[in-house]
């Protein structure tokens, strides 16, 4: 039966030759770090499946027209939007709804974490070099799309926490030079707390971004397929060969097995670890705010920058540079531009335009590794700055002191970490060179 069906398809498309050669025997390198990108891919599949389920119940309305009468007692009789009420309904009145909601949120966090880790792996091993600069651009675009996907996703719920995040997002868009007011109104449909934002965010979150991410992933994989994987240095691995296990059957079983393991871990988190308990935050009210508001981690570094940046809002010739502009809009754009352009900057700086299929060890490139570590430390300090209020309470000190110390750390720590990394790498590189020359002697 299956053979008959396969024959019928091949009669019409003639795929057998192609599949035998390029598909079934495709070589996949066998190294754990190649699973980071796979984790991101599998999390995305889980996001699409769980998100579709949630979309069957979610109602994207932002006006406070509902008086809640569902089964969560503490909020009964409270006025709220359709978006928030339907999310409460998913959480309390849809069988297994809360489980799917938590799976969706955990999958989003793991998706972003996996993309970030995969990006770090590609960066520190120099996998982005020619001929993979094009795919680096696609990959960074996936990171950006994922970031917006996460932010819009937890914002559509219209709870108090996400509403606060939207107000801040509005102020950052408003701070864009001169077109800010138009841009902010085109996106948000009106000034801060416009109820029109919820259906727009929903359309962006459930239609536009999933389509963009799907297209980018397909492009990412197609380019990877065409170019073949990179290889870590080792026996038989040269710029003209690739070493690994074939797709069929070993790699296929491992990959599908790994998909189930990722799904299982996310399902366990969704079942047992509470995430985003929106019923505790209450519905959005433009005149209310909860203390200790923290966004999800992938947005947290921008929040940190907004918190520790000094009160700087100069007026020049009647033009105001809004205080959120530099830490909120410019910093993000500069970091993003740096990320997009890094492969080209490095190629120009080292004058290396050769084809590279064999990866570097991080210690072989002290400057690159130092830049990467400095960037990671910068992001970590910013992320910690996003919780400066919690930090001040924990340490029992004044918030101003915490802000000052974090500001100094932001200027000093990344550079210091970069220099230390550089020195360590140079040492390791020298030692490896010595060992190699000694080892070669008879």
């Amino acid at each position, binding site marked *: 039966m299956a053979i008959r069906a396969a024959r019928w398809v091949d009669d019409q498309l003639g795929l057998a030759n192609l599949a035998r050669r390029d598909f079934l025997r495709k070589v996949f390198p066998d190294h754990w770090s190649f699973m980071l990108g796979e984790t991101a891919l599998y999390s995305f599949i889980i996001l699409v499946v769980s998100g579709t389920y949630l979309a069957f119940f979610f109602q994207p309305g932002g006006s406070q027209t509902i008086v809640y009468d569902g089964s969560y007692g503490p909020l009964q009789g409270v006025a709220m939007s359709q978006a928030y009420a339907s999310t409460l309904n998913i959480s309390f009145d849809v069988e297994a709804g809360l489980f799917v909601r938590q799976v969706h949120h955990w999958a989003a966090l793991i998706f972003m974490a996996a993309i970030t880790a995969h990006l770090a792996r590609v960066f520190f091993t120099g996998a982005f070099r020619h001929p993979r600069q094009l795919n680096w651009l696609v990959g960074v675009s996936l990171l950006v799309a994922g970031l917006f996907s996460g932010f819009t996703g937890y914002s559509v719920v219209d709870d108090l926490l996400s509403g606060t995040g939207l107000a801040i997002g509005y102020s950052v868009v408003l701070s864009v030079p001169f077109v800010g007011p138009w841009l902010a109104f085109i996106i948000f449909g009106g000034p801060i707390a416009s109820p029109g934002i919820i259906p727009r965010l929903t359309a962006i979150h459930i239609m536009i971004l999933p389509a963009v991410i799907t297209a980018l992933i397909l492009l990412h994989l197609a380019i990877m397929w065409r170019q073949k994987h990179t290889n870590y240095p080792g026996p038989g691995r040269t710029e003209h060969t*690739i070493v690994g296990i074939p797709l069929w059957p070993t790699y296929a079983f491992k990959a599908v097995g790994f998909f189930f393991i990722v799904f299982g871990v996310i399902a366990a988190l969704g079942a047992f670890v509470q995430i985003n308990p929106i019923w505790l935050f209450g519905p959005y009210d433009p005149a209310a705010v909860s203390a200790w508001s923290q966004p999800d981690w992938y947005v947290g570094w921008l929040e940190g920058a907004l918190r520790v940046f000094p009160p700087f809002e100069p007026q020049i010739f009647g033009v105001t540079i809004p205080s959120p502009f530099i830490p909120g809009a410019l910093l993000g754009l500069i970091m993003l531009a740096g990320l997009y352009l890094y492969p080209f900057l490095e190629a120009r700086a080292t004058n290396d335009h050769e084809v590279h299929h064999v990866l570097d060890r991080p210690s072989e490139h002290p400057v690159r590794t130092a830049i990467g570590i400095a960037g990671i430390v910068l992001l970590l300090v910013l992320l910690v700055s996003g919780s400066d209020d919690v930090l001040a309470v924990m340490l029992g000190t004044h918030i101003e002191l915490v802000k000052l110390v974090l500001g100094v750390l932001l200027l000093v720590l990344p550079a210091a970490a970069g220099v230390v990394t550089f020195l360590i790498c140079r040492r390791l590189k020298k030692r490896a060179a010595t060992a190699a020359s000694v080892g070669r002697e008879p």
Partner: protein
Amino acid sequence: MSGEPHHRRRRLWRAFEPVWALLGAAISAVAAVAAFWLGADIQLFGGLSALSLLLAGLGLAWWADWGMPDELVTEPREELASTPQDRAEFAATFARGGQAISRRRVLAASVITLIGAYFALAVSMVRSLAPNPYSILDHTAWKSGARVVTTGGDPLKPADVRIDSVLTVFPDGHVGEADAQTLLIRVRPDLLQLPSDRQSWATDGIVAYSKVCTHAGCPVGLYQAEQHLLLCPCHESTFDVLRGAQPIAGPAARALPQLPLTVDGEGFLVAQADYSTQVGPSFWDMPTGGS
């Protein structure tokens, strides 16, 4: 090169067969189905589903590791870039086809014009996404004589506001409007040190400031009565209530706009006028001047 021996550590579980993991996965999945239909606790359903998925993944990977060929194979990489001949042939073919276009200059130009017109059409549609922001950002619902009402819509007399208390208020008829939200705070009148041109803006020690933070638009929700400081919980900007809500700490650089207050004929608190400075976060071409 046909490959090399791939040395593996012997693992304890290789002595078992992966069939147990796959069977366990199926049993857990059936148990999860039962939990669902019996209306069991959501954690039981989720936990059994997770267990099933983990066992299934483990079983498949285990099978691959236990009973499938695991020798490393080496494949050649072909050159990615096309050969110069291929490139030349492509260029020639493209140019041959292109001649048909370049001969018809007027037609080509009209196609480009058409694309531009469609672009303009699409951009025009974007306009309907937003009202003109400048006609909304330049005012709030506060105007001369607008009564100060609570979130419940009740008007207030000065005697209703206790010393060191803080109330969120709106103009009558506009309760809940984000850009009109205002904080009403009463302090001992002799403590107030308002700028000289605002001496008449307070009534019996009652001052009113915009609740929208001038930094990033969060509601300035915390009041420390002993020090007379307003604190924004989002980024910890701090404003001095006694001195016209000037920022004294945190990232905000502008004072919270002050609403001039007075009392109407019936003794209720009303606004003298709308805010005279920009409410909420700044933008590049916002009106400046005023205090």
